């Protein structure tokens, strides 16, 4: 019985595997040729790899023992946390109405089109690029980091939430509308219950991602531990670099555990 079903399965996969259409084959070949070409442009050479790996080994040796004693780590990490919290809160608060406006099943075409454009704009630029611009606009410090990550949050939560709203069942909304409920009540009873679970997932992921990014925007002067890390790098203080990186990893891991707990509470 088992063997028979196994045989069936392997026949199917083989047939699938060996009989792609001509177009597909050409696409595969084209992708492969491109990759070889792209690899060539990176300037790989054996000599370079050998040297690089040598440096890498020296790096890793320089990391030990990691240095946690410096008093710069805690304030930097705390500032990263502040940036992550505030940007997640502000970003989500702004993303909710924008996502509702962007949902094509709730809004007229021109409204959703404008809101989608705003979301695309926020999504297109990496937080670090926004951070550079923000640093130029509001100066060095945490504010620039908050602005940068708020932009990213609007883009991320706005996009996913508007897609989640567009996928909800119209039947449930129809039923709530039929009771004579107002628009806001239709949102509260017809839309929110259908997207709440996914929304919590998006926000949890967003906070996680803001936490990781808040440790990075400091490299361009937008506050947080990133600045400390960058300067440690520049003065070749690799023990300190290792200490900071381990702290960041620890922070992100704590965040992931908290995330699981919060999702369970709201399930």
């Amino acid at each position, binding site marked *: 019985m088992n*063997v028979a079903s196994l045989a069936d399965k392997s026949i199917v996969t083989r047939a699938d595997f060996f009989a792609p259409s001509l177009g597909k084959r050409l696409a595969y070949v084209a992708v492969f040729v491109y990759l070889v070409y792209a690899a060539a442009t990176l300037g790989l050479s054996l000599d370079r790899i050998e040297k690089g790996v040598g440096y890498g080994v020296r790096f890793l040796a320089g990391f030990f023992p990691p240095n946690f004693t410096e008093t710069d780590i805690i304030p930097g990490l705390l*500032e990263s946390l502040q940036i992550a919290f505030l940007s997640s809160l502000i970003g989500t608060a702004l993303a909710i109405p924008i996502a509702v406006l962007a949902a094509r099943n709730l809004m007229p075409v021109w409204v959703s089109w404008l809101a989608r454009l705003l979301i695309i704009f926020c999504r297109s630029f990496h937080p670090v690029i926004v951070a550079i*611009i923000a640093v*130029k606009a509001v100066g060095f*410090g945490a504010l620039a980091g908050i602005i940068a990550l708020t932009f990213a949050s609007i883009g991320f939560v706005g996009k996913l939430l508007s897609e989640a709203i567009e996928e909800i069942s119209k039947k449930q909304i129809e039923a709530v509308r039929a009771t004579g409920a107002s628009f806001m009540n239709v949102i509260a009873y017809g839309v929110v219950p259908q997207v709440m679970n996914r929304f919590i997932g998006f926000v949890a992921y967003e906070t996680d991602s803001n936490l990781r990014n808040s440790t990075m925007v400091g490299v361009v002067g937008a506050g947080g531990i*990133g600045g400390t890390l960058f300067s440690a790098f520049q003065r070749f203080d690799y023990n300190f670099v290792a200490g900071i990186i381990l702290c960041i990893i620890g922070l992100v891991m704590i965040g992931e555990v908290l995330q699981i707990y*919060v999702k369970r509470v709201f399930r």
Partner: protein
Amino acid sequence: MTSASLEMQRWIRFTPLQRLARFAVFFVMAAAVAWALKTIEIIPEFLYDAPEQVVDMGSRMWPIDWEHFWPAVWPALVETMHMSAMATILGLMMGIPVGFLAAGNATPFLWVNLIAKFILVATRSISTLIWALFFVAMFGPGPLAGALAIAFHSIGFIGKMFSEAVEESNRGSIEALQAAGATRMQQIIMGYWPQVLPTFWSVALFRWDINVRESAVLGLVGAGGIGMALNAAIDLIQWQRVALILLTIFIVVILIETIVTQIRKKVI
């Protein structure tokens, strides 16, 4: 009335324990935000000044310096595209094995799972920019360092998606293979791989889309691509060129996203 009230039933939406848990979460969140607002160092003058500064910056960006495109921006853009494509392939090559090692059903050794999971979290926690600092120090400035940086950062995401897909895959066909005496490697190739193939395509496309965005910033630390052009323009305070580069990034990102959506619709 009195007889009715005797029969009154209470309706509460959550049990007391659920209420307590929800309240705790909200309380902690509110406390965290309050703490952050209270202690964060923001210079108010900077905040009030911001709108004026933004307007000023915008006015200096106009007119856009189109002349700059072919000599400087286009080659950098091509480099960015190469970098992100290589990074995606490398990331898949490294992330997929780790993903299989992290999945409890494909690799039934708890300590291997834990180590693999740690690798996934660690690679993801270290941002691309920091990976780039390492690789620039190792291999010198240029797109090689950039491609490696993005590839190492993507291990976490790719591996996580894969280990989740593997853990959700159907037991039946794996048991059939075990019954037929397949080795672990054969089980992975014949049993799990066909089941996670859709995940492979969607993760590859999704990550490529992200990696294009990522590779646009790596030039800031010397790791090649359009970020280097951006950095140069900002350092030289050439705002009209900055505007051109930002516009280019915007258009490329939208194009890529459109392409990815189209491929997804057709393939998956």
